[in-house]
C-alpha cells in the first residue's frame, strides 16, 4: 500500500507537469497584501474606521438613545400615577385625571387613550385606537392621529381590569426628526471617515514605501560595490531615523572591516615580500655558493630566523584581525588592572635599568576594568616595548593609569624622538613605519594591535607630543 506513489509516478505521461507541487499563482489581493506598505495602510484604515464607528455609536447612545430612554421613563412615571388613580377611584377617577393631564400638558406632547372592552374611546386625545397596537404588544413606536394630525408617538399599552385598555405615550415627532438629522450626519461622517481613512492609508503606505525605498536603494548600491552610500537620516530622531542610524553604523563597521581586509592583503603583498625575498636569496645563495657545510648551515639558520620573523608578522596580523572582528568579546570578564600593570612594570623595569633608562609608574591601588585581560596586557606591553626601544639612555619612561567615568586611562610617555604630527594619524596603521623607526627592529604592527585592542574596548589610542618624545594614551571603556 505504501509503495503506491512509487509505482504511479512512472505511469504519468512523459513531460506532464507535476501539477500537485505547483502553487497556484497569487491573486492580485494576495500580492497586494504581501506588501508591508499596503498591510500597514490597511491596518491604519481599519483602526481609523473602527474608532470612527466607536465614536458614532457613543454619540448615538448619548443623544438619540438618551432621549428614547427619557421618554420611556416619563411614560412609565405617567402610567404609574394613572394606575394609582385607577386603583383609588376606578374608571371615573381615571377619566377625570386623563382630562386634567391633557389640559395641563403645555408642550402638547402627552398622549392618553382609555378604551372600553369594545375599543370605544372613553377618554384621551387620540382619534382612535391605533390599528397597529396589537393586543399583545406592550410598548412600541407607531404612527398616530391626534386631532386629525398624523404624528409619530412612543406608546405603552396597559390592560386594565374589566377589559379596559389604557395607552400612555409621548409624541416623538420632533425627536424623530432630530434622530433623522443625526443619522444623516453620521452617514456623511462615515463617508468622510472612509475618504480620510483611505487617503491616510495611502499616505502611510507611501511614507513607508519611501523610507524603505531609500534603505533598499542603499542596500542595492552597497551590494553593487559602492560602499560609500548611506541611508538618509531625516534628523527628526524618529524610529526610522534610529533604523537608518543603526544601518549606517553597521555599514560604517563593514567598510572599516573591508578596508582592514584590503590593507592586510596589500600588506601581505608588499611588506611580506621583503623578508620572504631575503630568506629566499639567502637559501639560493647558500645552495649555489656555500663552500663548506658550516657556511651552508649558517645560511639555513639565518633563513629560519627570517621565516620565524615572517610567521611572527602573520600571527600579529591574524591577532589584529581577530580582535577587530570583535569575536574576543566573548572572553570579556571583570578584572583589576592594577596587578596587571604592576607585573608589566616589574617585567620591563629590569630591561629599562639594563638600558640605562628609568621606568616610573603611577598606578592607583585598584583599577577595575571589564574586558579581555590578555589583550589589554599585550597592548600596554607593546607601548612599553616601543618606549624602551626609542628612549635614549639616561632618560625616563612613565607609565601612568587612572580611573575614568567609563573605564580606565593608561598612558605611556617616553623621551624618544616622538612621531611628527604629519605621521601621527597614520602611525597606528598596519605596517606603517616612521622615518625614525626605519632602522630599528620591528614589524610596524605594534601600534596597530594597540589601537585594535582600544577599539575592542570601545575606546581609543591617542598619540601626542610629550615635548620631547611620544605620549601614547589608551582610553578604555569597561563595557559590560
Amino acid at each position, binding site marked *: 500500500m505504501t509503495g503506491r506513489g512509487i509505482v504511479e509516478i512512472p505511469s504519468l505521461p512523459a513531460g506532464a507537469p507535476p501539477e500537485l507541487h505547483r502553487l497556484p499563482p497569487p491573486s492580485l489581493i494576495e500580492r497586494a497584501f504581501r506588501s508591508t506598505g499596503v498591510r500597514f495602510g490597511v491596518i491604519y484604515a481599519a483602526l481609523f474606521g473602527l474608532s470612527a464607528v466607536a465614536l458614532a455609536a457613543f454619540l448615538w447612545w448619548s443623544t438619540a438613545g438618551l432621549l428614547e430612554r427619557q421618554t420611556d421613563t416619563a411614560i412609565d412615571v405617567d402610567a404609574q400615577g394613572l394606575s394609582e388613580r385607577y386603583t383609588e377611584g376606578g374608571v371615573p377617577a381615571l377619566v377625570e385625571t386623563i382630562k386634567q393631564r391633557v389640559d395641563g400638558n403645555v408642550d402638547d406632547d402627552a398622549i392618553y387613550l382609555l378604551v372600553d372592552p369594545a375599543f370605544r374611546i372613553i377618554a384621551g386625545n387620540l382619534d382612535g385606537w391605533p390599528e397597529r397596537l396589537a393586543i399583545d404588544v406592550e410598548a412600541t413606536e407607531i404612527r398616530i392621529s391626534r386631532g386629525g394630525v398624523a404624528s409619530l408617538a412612543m406608546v405603552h399599552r396597559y390592560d386594565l381590569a374589566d377589559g379596559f385598555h389604557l395607552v400612555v405615550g409621548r409624541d416623538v415627532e420632533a425627536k424623530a426628526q432630530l434622530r433623522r438629522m443625526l443619522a444623516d450626519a453620521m452617514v456623511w461622517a462615515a463617508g468622510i471617515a472612509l475618504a480620510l481613512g483611505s487617503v491616510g492609508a495611502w499616505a502611510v503606505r507611501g511614507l513607508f514605501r519611501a523610507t524603505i525605498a531609500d534603505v533598499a536603494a542603499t542596500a542595492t548600491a552597497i551590494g553593487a560595490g559602492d560602499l560609500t552610500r548611506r541611508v538618509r537620516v531625516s534628523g527628526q530622531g524618529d524610529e526610522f531615523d534610529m533604523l537608518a542610524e543603526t544601518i549606517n553604523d553597521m555599514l560604517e563597521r563593514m567598510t572599516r572591516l573591508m578596508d582592514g581586509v584590503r590593507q592586510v592583503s596589500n600588506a601581505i603583498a608588499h611588506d611580506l615580500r621583503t623578508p620572504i625575498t631575503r630568506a629566499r636569496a639567502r637559501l639560493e645563495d647558500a645552495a649555489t655558493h656555500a663552500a663548506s657545510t658550516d657556511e651552508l648551515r649558517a645560511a639555513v639558520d639565518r633563513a629560519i630566523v627570517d621565516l620565524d620573523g615572517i610567521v611572527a608578522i602573520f600571527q600579529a596580523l591574524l591577532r589584529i584581525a581577530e580582535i577587530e572582528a570583535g569575536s574576543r568579546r566573548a572572553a570579556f570578564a571583570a578584572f583589576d588592572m592594577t596587578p596587571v600593570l604592576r607585573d608589566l612594570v*616589574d617585567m620591563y623595569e629590569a630591561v629599562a635599568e639594563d638600558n640605562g633608562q628609568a621606568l616610573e609608574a603611577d598606578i592607583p591601588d585598584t583599577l577595575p576594568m571589564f574586558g579581555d585581560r590578555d589583550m589589554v596586557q599585550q597592548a600596554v606591553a607593546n607601548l612599553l616595548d616601543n618606549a624602551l626601544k626609542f628612549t635614549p639612555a639616561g632618560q625616563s619612561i612613565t607609565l601612568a593609569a587612572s580611573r575614568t567615568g567609563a573605564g580606565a586611562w593608561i598612558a605611556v610617555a617616553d623621551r624618544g624622538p616622538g612621531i611628527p604630527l604629519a605621521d601621527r594619524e597614520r602611525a597606528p596603521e598596519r605596517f606603517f613605519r616612521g622615518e625614525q623607526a626605519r632602522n630599528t627592529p620591528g614589524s610596524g604592527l605594534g601600534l596597530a594591535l594597540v589601537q585594535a585592542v582600544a577599539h575592542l574596548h570601545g575606546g581609543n589610542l591617542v598619540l601626542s607630543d610629550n615635548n620631547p618624545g611620544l605620549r601614547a594614551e589608551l582610553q578604555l571603556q569597561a563595557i559590560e
Partner: protein
Amino acid sequence: MRILVVEDDKDVAGFVVKGLKEAGHVVEHAATGRDGLFLAASEAFDAIVLDRMLPGGVDGLRLLETLRSQGNTTPVMFLSALAQVDDRVKGLKAGGDDYMTKPFAFAELLARVEALTRRGRNEGPTTKLVVADLEMDLLSRSVKRAGTKIDLQPREFRLLEFLMRHAAQVVTRTMLLEGVWDYHFDPQTNVIDVHVSRLRQKIDKPFATPLIHTVRNAGYMLRPEPP
C-alpha cells in the same frame, strides 16, 4: 620515554619523529585519527603529540575526548595550525595539557613535551627543591647556595622555582613567559634574557660553577654540569 605522534603531514611527522628519536625517546607514529586512537588506547605512552585536523573521520579533539572518557590521563600536547585564542581554549578544554601552533621550532616542541612527561611524575607536594648545592625552601621562601643565603625578589624567586622544577631540562623563553609571567604573547624586547641574567648575577656569579646554562637556539637549562 614512549611518545606517540599523531600527525598526517608526512614531512612534519618525519621531522618530529626523527627529532624525538635523536633526543633518546621511543616514538610511534599514526597518520590518521583512527589509528592514533587505537594506538593510544591499546598501548601505554608517556606523552602524545596530537595534530587537530586529521583524516579518517576522527579529528584530534574527538580522539582526545574519547581517550579522556576512557580514563586515560596520558599527557597530550596539541600541535595545530589552528592558532586563534579560541582554538587554544577549545583544545585545553577538551583535556589537552599544552597547545602549540604551527609553524613551530623543534627545540620548543621537545622542551614542552619533556616538561609534560616530567610533570606527570612528581605530582606530590614538595616543600624543598635541591639542585647540586642550590636549595630552595618553598615554605619559608628562602634560597641558599653552598650554605649562603641568597636574597631574591618575588619574581626572581618564581623564575628560579620554575627553572628548578624543570631542572636538567630545556626551558624555552615562551615557557618562562607563560609559566612565570602568565603572558601569552612574545614581547619585542629581550625581557626574559634580562631577567635570567639578573638571576645569574645572584645565583651563579659569586660561585665557582654556574648552574644556569644557555641552550643555543632553545632557551635555558638549570643543572650542575653544562649541557
